[in-house]
């Protein structure tokens, strides 16, 4: 069917042509100058490519934002994000902690003396610690103390002091220790030694206590080694709650527990109460007879890292187990009995127990996904959306600046070219002056001034446009002047002179339309340059400020080494958009130049 139709169509179109005469008006197709330019433009492939790029860019920047569901500075956060956060801290205690009996003192100086005694002992015993059952004597502040190892595994020690018991003279017994003040048994013992013939020094045992005496025939001093009054241990006695704080600080009870730990006892009785003990490795859990937790004894020091958190015994048990077993992840029951996942995070000697906590996170640097086709940027904002809005600002700045430049340039160049003479000279020197101002240094200083006065938002963009415009109009002024100078010499201007029309009409009806093509070409080519300048300022962090965006300021994020290395989706698309639109403007400008005047210099 189609094969038959084709020749017929050809005949139909061919037929009228044959009839047409050579000078037929229809033969000579007269095209308007505008149409000619358009036809030449259309024929240029590069120009068409540029036009397509620009149309796409404009649609992207000005229509695109209507379709994006997000706004320019919308920050995306993840409210359901779980993040490991510190719950408690754990530390191995490797210092002796002192529990002193109520009413007695064991000062810092005494502790230092003890340490000194230990180190002296180690020096003389090949670095060996004090074995169990042996006693070490040391003095501090005029007092003599005896330290005795309770449990070398922890290690824990008890300290006794040498106490004055009594002074015995001839027929005179003076007992100074209060607890023996009215002890007839002791008095009887002392009486035996109150006679001059008795030995002047020696020791004896009374009620299981060693009593030593020394002196002369007339007076003997009796001293005894008292009950343990300090417990020095690396274990921590940690009460479950305030009610048991006093118990945890009670020296006798602590000693009892240490002994129980050493002897693997399952219960101790203290002040008529029975406590059940559960041994877990090197730790001890103390419960009362009802089975309620009382305290823990462990080498691990716990501290809370979060407000309002009470560290429960089950938590401590689980943590101790994990720490000793060097497990990274473990579980512990919380107040309601639910199992909570926890993680151990070791930094040097500190161990942090972390639990997952629900927190609001800004989703920064998220790679592209279906929701966000170009991912999220370093502020957690949608890159695609910001590119669209940024394109608006970049293109708008470009257009306004170029319009501004052309406006100044046409006026100055036009006046200069039309009037000539001293006006021309003066204006051209002005152009020279503005041309000589170094562009980037000047822009950077001006923008720094804006920074100093905290100009931001749209006011900043406005000033930026003015700065770029004021520094960039000289090229257009020169071109306009040159064109008007050459037009002035042409016949049609002589004709306007002859017809005697108004100067303004001469300029606006006859000169400006003839300069127009050149201006359009120059403006199009200049647009690319303006966009690049604006983007460069944005990149240096001097251009459009957050939360507004421009293509340059989006790439500014790539100055962050991390973003540059790992997050290509943040900065590469913006750079490509700048490049493509500048390329588009250049292609179109090139095409327009060719189209307006094919003979013109390219």
């Amino acid at each position, binding site marked *: 069917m189609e094969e038959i139709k084709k020749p017929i169509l050809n005949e139909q179109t061919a037929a009228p042509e044959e009839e047409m005469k050579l000078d037929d008006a229809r033969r000579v197709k007269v095209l308007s100058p505008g149409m000619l330019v358009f036809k030449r433009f259309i024929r240029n492939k590069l120009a068409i490519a540029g036009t397509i790029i620009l149309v796409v860019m404009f649609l992207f920047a000005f229509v695109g934002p209507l379709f994006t569901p997000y706004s320019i500075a919308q920050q995306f956060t993840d409210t359901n994000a779980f993040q490991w956060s510190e719950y408690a801290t754990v530390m191995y205690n490797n210092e002796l902690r002192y529990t002193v009996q109520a009413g007695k003192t064991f000062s810092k100086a005494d502790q230092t003396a003890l340490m000194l005694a230990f180190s002296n002992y180690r020096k003389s015993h090949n670095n060996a610690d004090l074995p169990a059952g042996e006693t070490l004597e040391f003095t501090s502040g005029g007092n003599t103390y005896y330290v005795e190892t309770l449990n070398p595994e922890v290690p824990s020690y008890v300290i006794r002091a040498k106490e004055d018991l009594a002074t015995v003279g001839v027929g005179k017994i003076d007992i100074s220790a209060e607890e023996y003040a009215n002890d007839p048994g002791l008095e009887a013992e002392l009486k035996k030694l109150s006679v001059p013939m008795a030995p002047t020094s020696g020791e004896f045992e009374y009620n299981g206590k060693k009593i030593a005496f020394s002196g002369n025939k007339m007076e003997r001093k009796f001293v005894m080694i008292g009950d343990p009054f300090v417990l020095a241990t690396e274990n921590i006695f940690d009460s479950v709650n305030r009610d048991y704080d006093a118990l945890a600080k009670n020296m006798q009870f602590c000693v009892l527990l240490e002994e129980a730990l050493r002897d693997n006892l399952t219960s101790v009785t203290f002040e008529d109460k029975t406590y059940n003990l559960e041994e877990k490795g090197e730790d001890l859990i103390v419960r009362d007879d009802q089975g309620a937790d009382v305290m823990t004894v462990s080498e691990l020091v716990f501290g809370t890292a979060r407000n309002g958190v009470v560290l429960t015994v089950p938590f401590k048990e689980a943590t101790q187990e994990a720490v000793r077993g060097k497990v990274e992840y473990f579980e512990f029951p919380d107040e309601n009995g639910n199992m909570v996942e926890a993680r151990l995070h070791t930094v040097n000697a500190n161990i942090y127990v972390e639990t997952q906590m629900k927190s609001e996170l800004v989703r920064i640097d998220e790679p592209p996904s279906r929701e966000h086709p170009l991912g999220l940027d370093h502020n957690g904002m949608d890159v695609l959306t910001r590119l669209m809005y940024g394109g608006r600002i970049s293109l708008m700045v470009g257009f306004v600046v170029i319009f501004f430049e052309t406006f100044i340039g046409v006026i100055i160049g036009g006046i200069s070219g039309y009037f000539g003479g001293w006006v021309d000279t003066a204006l051209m020197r002005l152009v020279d*002056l503005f041309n000589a101002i*170094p562009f980037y240094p*000047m822009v950077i200083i001006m923008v720094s*001034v804006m920074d100093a006065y905290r100009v931001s938002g749209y006011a900043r963009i406005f000033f930026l446009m003015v700065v770029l415009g004021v520094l960039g109009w000289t090229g257009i002024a020169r071109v306009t002047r040159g064109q008007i100078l050459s037009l002035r010499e042409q016949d049609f201007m002589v004709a306007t002179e002859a017809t005697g029309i108004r100067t303004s009409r001469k300029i606006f009806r006859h000169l400006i339309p003839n300069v127009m093509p050149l201006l359009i070409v120059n403006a199009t080519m200049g647009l690319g340059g303006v966009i690049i300048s604006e983007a460069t300022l944005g990149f240096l962090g001097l251009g459009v400020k957050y939360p507004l965006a421009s293509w340059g300021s989006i790439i500014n994020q790539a100055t962050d080494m991390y973003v540059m290395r790992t997050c290509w989706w943040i900065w590469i698309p913006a*750079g490509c958009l700048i490049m493509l639109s500048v390329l588009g403007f250049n292609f179109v400008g090139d095409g327009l130049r060719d189209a307006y005047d094919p003979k013109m210099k390219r």
Partner: protein
Amino acid sequence: MWKFLVRRIVLGLVIVILCSLIVYSVIRCLPTSYMEKIARERAAGTQGMKSYSQWLEELNNIYHMDGSILGGFYAWLSEVAQGNFGESWVYQVPVVQKYNEVIWWSVLMNVITLIVEIFISIPLGIVAARKQYSRTDYAVTVFALACISLPTFFLATILKYVFAVRLGWLPLYGLSGRWYQTGTVWYKIGDILYHLVLPVLTLATLSIGGLMRYTRTNMLEVLNADYIRTARAKGLPEKVVINKHAFRNTLIPLVSYMSYLLPSMFGGAMITEELFQIPGIGRISYQAMTIGDIPFTMFYTLFLTVLTQVSLILADIMYAVVDPRVRVN
């Protein structure tokens, strides 16, 4: 000719002074904390019995910051006329000394760039002009336009990303490597050149487009001239026509174009140097400018404007040297 030259130089001088005035008045709007800082230091020190405000007043007087802008500018200008450019506020050394320290890195980089640029763009421009409207011509034109359209910072970042981060062939930034201090002279030269590859690549790519298009345009014009037709008509080989008759005549505009490159040669490449952390004049003065270091910025802009004027005058002279016809007019 001499009359013209003298007039041109006087005009250049006036333009340089007016330019400096404009820059000076803008930079005076920058609030700089330099005076306050020095005054505070001196008041806190034991150097005298003066208080902070007295020091501040005195310092402002020394640096002409207390008077009007015009007065300050006049004071600056008279100092400059005596060859005294002052001391940089940021770098704490005489401006000229600092300048001398850093400028040669920029010059080195720019000279290498220029050589690379000339060797790539002029042959390409000639090829494009010889085969006008061919596929080669289109390719060259598109390439040139693409080079012009690239923003410096984007090209530099892309190059860094590809060659330094992804491939790891070239260093990310800096001018010397880890072993620079311990190496031999040859090692040092090699190290610096190795570090200059990416910056030079960036600068060359950006400038190739312009020169290439310029060469092509001028070559096209020359190729359409009558004497080329004559040369072809008398049966000269195409090689001779292009290399002897056409190219030599293209050199006239090219040489004048070269003189316009003078400011960029000594003015440094601000963004490239900043991105590759090359301690050249561009980077150093960028940092001085944003902080409001008046002596340094003033010297830098003065330097640039003088260079621009010199290059313009030089271009005029070059024209006269290369093309005897200009001398007559």
